[in-house]
C-alpha cells in the first residue's frame, strides 16, 4: 500500500470516526439533543403557522454547532494534552490531513445530526419546501461547520481539556441563545441584538432563514459577507493559537 494523500486522509478520517463512534458521551448529545429540542419547540409546542419552518432554519445551525465546537475544541485539547498531536507532527502526516479528517468527520456528524431534524420537520412538523430550498438549506447548515470548527480549533489550541470543555460549553450556549437559534432574535431587547450581531451563529441563522423565506426583512448577501469575514477571522485566530504551540 503506497502513501497517497487520499489514503492518509481516508485513514485519518476513519480514525476520527471510529474514536467518535466509541464515545457515546460525545455522540449522544451531539446527535440526539438538537432533534429532541426541535421536536419539543418546533413540532410539539408550535401549533402550525411558520414556527416549524422558522425553527428548522435555526435549529439546523444549532445542530451543526455541537460536533464542530466539541469535536474540534474539546477533541483537539485532549489530543494536544496527551501528546498525540506532537506524535502526529513528528510522523510524516501532512498537517492538512489532520485538519481535513477532522472536518470530514465533523461534516459527517453534522449531517447525521441534521437529517433527523429535517425528517421531524417534514414528517411531523408539516414543513414543505421546494427541493432546491431543502438542498440549499442543508448546504447552508453544513457550511456552518467551517466557522464553528475554526472557533473550536482555537479553543482546543488555547486551553487544557477541562478548560476547553468549559469554554466550549459557554460558547455553545451563548451562540445558541443570543444567536437566536432557540428563540427568534426579534424577541430580544436592543442591547442583546447588538451582541447577536457579533455572533456568527446569528448571521448563519439569518442566512438559513432567508433560504426558507421566513417572515422579516433580511439581506442574505450582507449576512454571508459577515459570516465570511468572521470565518477568516476565526481562521487567523486558529492559525495564531496553532503557532503558539511551538
Amino acid at each position: 500500500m503506497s502513501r497517497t494523500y487520499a489514503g492518509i486522509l481516508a485513514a485519518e478520517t476513519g480514525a476520527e470516526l471510529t474514536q467518535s463512534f466509541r464515545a457515546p458521551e460525545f455522540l449522544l448529545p451531539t446527535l440526539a439533543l438538537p432533534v429532541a429540542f426541535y421536536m419539543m419547540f418546533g413540532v410539539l409546542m408550535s401549533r402550525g403557522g411558520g414556527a416549524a419552518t422558522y425553527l428548522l432554519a435555526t435549529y439546523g445551525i444549532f445542530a451543526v454547532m455541537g460536533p464542530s465546537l466539541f469535536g474540534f475544541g474539546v477533541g483537539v485539547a485532549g489530543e494536544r494534552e496527551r501528546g498525540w498531536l506532537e506524535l502526529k507532527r513528528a510522523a510524516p502526516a501532512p498537517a492538512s490531513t489532520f485538519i481535513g479528517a477532522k472536518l470530514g468527520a465533523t461534516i459527517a456528524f453534522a449531517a447525521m445530526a441534521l437529517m433527523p431534524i429535517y425528517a421531524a420537520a417534514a414528517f411531523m412538523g408539516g414543513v414543505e419546501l421546494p427541493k432546491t430550498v431543502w438542498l440549499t438549506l442543508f448546504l447552508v447548515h453544513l457550511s456552518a461547520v467551517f466557522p464553528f470548527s475554526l472557533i473550536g480549533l482555537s479553543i482546543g489550541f488555547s486551553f487544557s481539556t477541562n478548560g476547553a470543555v468549559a469554554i466550549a460549553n459557554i460558547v455553545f450556549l451563548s451562540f445558541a441563545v443570543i444567536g437566536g437559534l432557540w428563540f427568534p432574535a426579534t424577541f430580544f431587547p436592543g442591547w442583546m441584538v447588538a451582541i447577536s450581531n457579533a455572533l456568527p451563529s446569528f448571521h448563519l441563522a439569518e442566512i438559513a432563514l432567508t433560504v426558507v423565506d421566513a417572515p422579516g426583512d433580511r439581506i442574505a448577501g450582507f449576512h454571508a459577507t459577515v459570516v465570511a469575514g468572521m470565518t477568516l477571522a476565526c481562521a487567523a485566530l486558529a492559525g495564531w493559537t496553532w503557532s503558539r504551540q511551538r
Partner: protein
Amino acid sequence: MMSAMDTHTDPRQLPAVIEAQDLSRRFGDTVALDAVDLHVPAGQICTLLGRNGAGKTTFIRCALGLLPPTTGSVKVLGEPAGSMAARLGTGVMLQDTDLSEALTAREQLALFSSYYSDPADIDAVIEEADIGNFADTRYKKLSGGQKRRVQFAVALIGKPRLLFLDEPTTGLDTDARRAVWDNVRRLAARGTSIILTTHYLEEADALADRIVVLAQGRVIADDTAAAIRARTGGAIIRCRTSITPEQALALPGVRAADRHGRLLTLSCEHAPTTLRALLDADPDVDDLEVTKPTLEQAFTALSAVTTEDAS
C-alpha cells in the same frame, strides 16, 4: 520485507543520521541546549545520557522538528529536521506521549502505516513488538507497560532508518525492559540507527555503541561506554573495615568514600597506592575487592566534575 532491511549497505558509508551544529535552544532565560555539536553516523546505537533536565528531550524535539532551535541547526538523515523527507525515514517513540485512547493497537498501526510509502506489515510489527495479546484492545484499557510497547510498535511501522526512543523503558518491568533491549539490538543489527535517551545507565551500558552525556544542555562526554569508564580512570575498592569514610579520605589517592555498615567503598586514582595505605591503616581488612568503576560511577564522577566547572 525484513530482507530489505537485512541487505542494508555498510552503515559507515551512509551519511550521518544526525548532524547537529552549534545547536542551542533557550526557553526564556533557561538554556536547555547550549551549542551542541553532535554527529551520529548511520548504524549506531547512540545513547543520550543525562539527568532529568539535562537537555536530552529538548535535543530529540529539535531533531524531530517539533522545536525550532534558537541558534544552530540540526539535520536528520541529511535533511532539515522536521522536513517530510526526514520524517519519512524516522520512527519516533516519545516520552509523555499517549496514542489515541479509543483506538486499538492494530488501528493505530493502520493509521500510521498510511503515512509511509513502504510500511512494515502490521502483523509482523505486532509480532516483533510482542503486543499480539492486546493488539485488539482499546489503548485506554492497557497497562502502562503495554502502552509503551504499543508506542514502540508504532515507532517501527514505517520501517525507519533512524529510530528515536525517548526513555523507551520507563515504567516497564525488568522482563519487558529486556524485551525492548532485545528488539533494539535486533534492529541495530539490521542496520537501523537508533538515538536513545535514558537515565538508566544500565540501559546505556547494555545497548549503546556510543554514549553522549548531557549536563545542563552541554555535551560533557561523547564516547564508547568503555572509553567513558576509562576516562574516569582509577578503581573501586570495597572491603569490610573499621575505618570511617573521613579517615579513608585522608588516605592517598582516595577521591570518594562511602560506607554502609562495615562495608566501605572507595573510589581511587591508583589502586596499588591506596591499597598499601589501607592495609597499613587497618590490618583486619576483610572481603577485599578491587574493580573497574561502573558507568554509573563514571557518570557520577563526570557530572560532579562538570558541576564544579560550571560553578
